[in-house]
């Protein structure tokens, strides 16, 4: 069973981007990539698993080091074509402990175990005869094979490579692991599906899974972004004060804390996004969320019973409090057992008498006249968009980033704001929620769902 799924060994000359290709195809940022040849020393498998079942596996391998020596060993005996793979197996068997051929043994092993060959060359450098020995060896294995031309540099020798590779490989394709987007990845998988008839089905299945995987990531991202927006826009910090006015120092400290908290929320969201997209090692040259010109003190409010002023008036607790004591309140309640409209009268009275007086009252021995200063929610109309565009931009960058490309992500504010222009229709729905949150209300689940859906749409369009 375990032998059934298709395998593909990515092989080639040293330092031509084999590991880069594997990293991008497997969405794995842990693959060692370096400018130094000989970085990869052991074969390593990258299975695509769905619920624990492997659909196919990629193998990263070291580059050829002594191809001519091996080819000459293979050719020492006259071998008919149908026996050549056995000759290769014999080579591996006989040289397993020979350190001279460790790299070749590592790279040939998956192939003689049935892996298809993905041969990687650098199409930005001229073709050379020194490649011929290794291509010969690959032919001896008799496995299905394709060549991938990777363009490491801007120079172009693709034409001559195609001529040479076409003689040894079933298929020749171009693939750039540093720039490949999702669509190109899928196209490559489609080519791989054609390599061998028995594999087609499973590789096609893998393509479906990759698409599903991508959707899952976008779903998770839109959930996360929505949560970030809700948490940030509804963020409040309070601190109780003595007397009637807060001191400047107190205000300053609270705003500092508030900014800190906002940035932390964003930082955490970015981290989780990086995790969703398997890009945890990626660095970010970040421009901090700038909050300098935004008024953080939106409203000053006192609380009673842990409820906000609005809530109090709406629910009528204030009304109850007006009658003087909670016990009264309870009795008033039970005398209305049948549900008369008197309750509404009491409740409404709270709104009539206003809130200030109520806040001074003592209820059931709890002093409720405490004063608080509160920072947030930020009322600034553009603030939600500053936040949203930043996180969308980050998601877009990280989602489109092939895993071989490990350059920093730059969060340039002016660029970010320019990058995203949202449609009026989209904005309207977004606004609905922003306004609610900024008022200090909790949005309904349905609205949150709608918001999430919009973010999903925006991301789908921007993640190729």
């Amino acid at each position, binding site marked *: 069973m375990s032998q059934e799924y298709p395998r593909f060994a990515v092989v080639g*000359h*040293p*330092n031509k981007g084999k590991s880069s290709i594997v990293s991008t*195809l*497997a*969405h794995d940022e842990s693959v*060692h990539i*370096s*400018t*130094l*040849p000989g970085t990869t*020393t*052991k074969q*390593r*498998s990258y299975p*695509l698993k*769905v*619920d*624990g079942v492997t659909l196919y596996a990629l193998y990263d391998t070291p*580059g*050829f*080091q*002594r191809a*001519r*020596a091996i080819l*000459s060993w293979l050719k020492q005996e006259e071998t008919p074509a149908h026996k050549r793979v056995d000759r290769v197996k014999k080579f591996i068997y006989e040289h397993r402990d020979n350190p*001279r051929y460790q*790299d070749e043994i590592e790279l040939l092993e998956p192939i003689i175990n049935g892996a298809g060959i993905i041969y990687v060359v650098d199409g930005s*450098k*001229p073709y*050379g*005869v*020194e490649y*011929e020995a290794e291509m010969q060896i690959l032919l001896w294995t008799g496995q299905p094979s394709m060549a991938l031309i990777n363009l490491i540099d801007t*120079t172009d020798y693709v034409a001559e490579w195609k001529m040479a590779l076409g003689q040894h490989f079933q298929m020749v394709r171009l693939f750039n692991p540093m720039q490949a987007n999702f669509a190109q990845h899928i196209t490559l998988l489609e080519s791989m599906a054609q390599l061998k008839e028995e594999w087609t089905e499973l590789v096609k299945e893998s393509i479906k*899974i*990759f698409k599903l*995987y991508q959707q899952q990531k976008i779903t998770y991202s839109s959930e996360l972004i929505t949560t970030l927006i809700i948490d940030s826009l509804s963020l409040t910090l309070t601190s109780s004060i003595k007397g009637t006015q807060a001191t400047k120092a107190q205000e300053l400290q609270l705003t500092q804390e508030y900014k800190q908290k906002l940035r932390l929320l964003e930082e955490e969201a970015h981290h989780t996004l990086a995790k969703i997209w398997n890009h945890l090692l990626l660095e970010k040259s970040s421009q901090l969320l700038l909050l300098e010109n935004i008024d953080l003190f939106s409203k000053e409010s006192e609380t009673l*019973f842990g409820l906000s002023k609005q*809530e109090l008036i*709406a629910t009528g*607790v204030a009304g109850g409090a007006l009658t003087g004591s909670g016990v009264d*309140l*309870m009795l*008033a*309640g*039970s*005398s*209305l*057992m*049948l*549900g*008369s*409209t008197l*309750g*509404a009268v009491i*409740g409404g009275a709270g709104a009539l008498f206003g809130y200030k007086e109520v806040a001074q009252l003592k209820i*059931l021995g709890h002093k409720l006249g405490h004063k608080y200063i509160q920072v947030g929610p930020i009322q600034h109309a553009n603030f939600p968009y500053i936040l949203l565009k930043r996180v969308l931009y980050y998601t877009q960058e990280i989602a489109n980033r092939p895993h071989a490309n490990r350059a920093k992500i730059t969060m340039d504010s002016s660029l970010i704001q320019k990058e995203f222009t949202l449609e009026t229709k989209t904005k309207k729905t977004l606004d609905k929620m922003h306004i609610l949150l900024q008022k200090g209300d*909790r949005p309904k*689940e349905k609205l949150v769902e709608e918001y999430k859906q919009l973010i999903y749409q925006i991301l789908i369009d921007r993640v190729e």
Partner: protein
Amino acid sequence: MSSSLLKTYIDLYQLIKTQDQTHEESRRFGLAHSNLLTNPIELLDAWRRSQLHLLPHPSYSKRIEDILFRVTTLSFILSFLFGIFSGMGLLYYNGDAPINLLYFLTLVSFVPIITMVFTLLAILSANKSKNILISISPTYWIEKIVRHFSTKEIEIYYNPLISNWLLLKRSLLLGIIFSFAILIVLLVSVLTKDIAFSWSTTLQITPQEFHTLLLAIALPWQELVPQAVPSLELIQKSQYFRLGNMLNSQLLDNTMLLGEWWKFLAMSTIVYALLLRIALFGFISWGYKRALYHSILLLGKDILYQMQEPLVSTQALTKETPLSPSQEAEVPTTKSLQQSYPYVIGWAIDESTIQLHNQREAIETAIIYQAGGNNSLEEDQEIIDTIHTTALLYVKSWEPPTMDFIDFLMDLSSKSSVILYPLGTIENHYMPTDEEFAIWERKVSLLKNDTIRMKR
């Protein structure tokens, strides 16, 4: 389902807020319970049960159930007592004057109808968080106060979808208990004493008009219990006028007849204050259950998604052996070349290119060799065999040095000194880039062989 839906909801809420569930864990659970995948509520409940041990004691659900129990007991007792007292007050009869049945009738038919209309209105807006009609309910207040004395963190209860329905349901139950108490008082009063009912009003209502009204009230049972439908005669005879302390003499004559009213009053209580409320109670229970289902699904949406979505992984399962730190070392380099070398060798470079470079560098040589590339190893060996003194060795700087080359270089350097000249591409005017040169330099330096120098 073994436990109540409310408990399921609250436990789920607490689990989801406090427990971080990875996709992998959820999916594993989903696959292990694949028979439930089409029944999300059951699936979530199964998951809840599997996670219960993670909740701190007492759990939210335990605490909330405790609060609810206290509230329920307290309000049921109050409501029952209140019903008893109200009934006793309304049916208070000392034989001086008959009881005006209008008060009682109002309490057992008009008030229930009005409150139920309010309840219906409240149902329409039951899903709103700020529901003024809900805050009318006494249960609301009792709970608020009880909550104040218990724990604050049970914000869960703020879910209007559930708490509103729950409040409605329990308010209605209070009404039922209250009415039941009144009914008991009525029946007990009728059994234990003789009561005379009468009716009187300041309004100008003729007995005929009053009869019509009462017939309308009695409509639901006029077929089933005709005895409980007051006749016009009864109405006429029990109209009561208070003129000073004088009692209507006709009224006194009919005391026995006036007792007949109790049947009508009892039926009104049963039908309006009880049956109608019970029906509404049934409807609200259904609505409550639906709201709970809805809330549970909403709450468990993400975790259900994780349970249902296949778990995909693409990465390597093993850690890659860490990179060995690169030992940088310098190799003696030379900037200038001699005018002539006895041997010039090109590694995988064809003869015309070698000649081109010789011309470029104005180098004279007697012998040009091509090594590597398509040569066999024997051919390379033959080249080495002929060489002594110094050799200039051209290599392609952009191709990394393979061990194949290193083998050759080692053999060569044992026979002669070697000037290794990495050539760049045409685009770079045959100059190696710094990086390319560094790669070659590093490789050569590892050989620790001082017969090799590099041309830069």
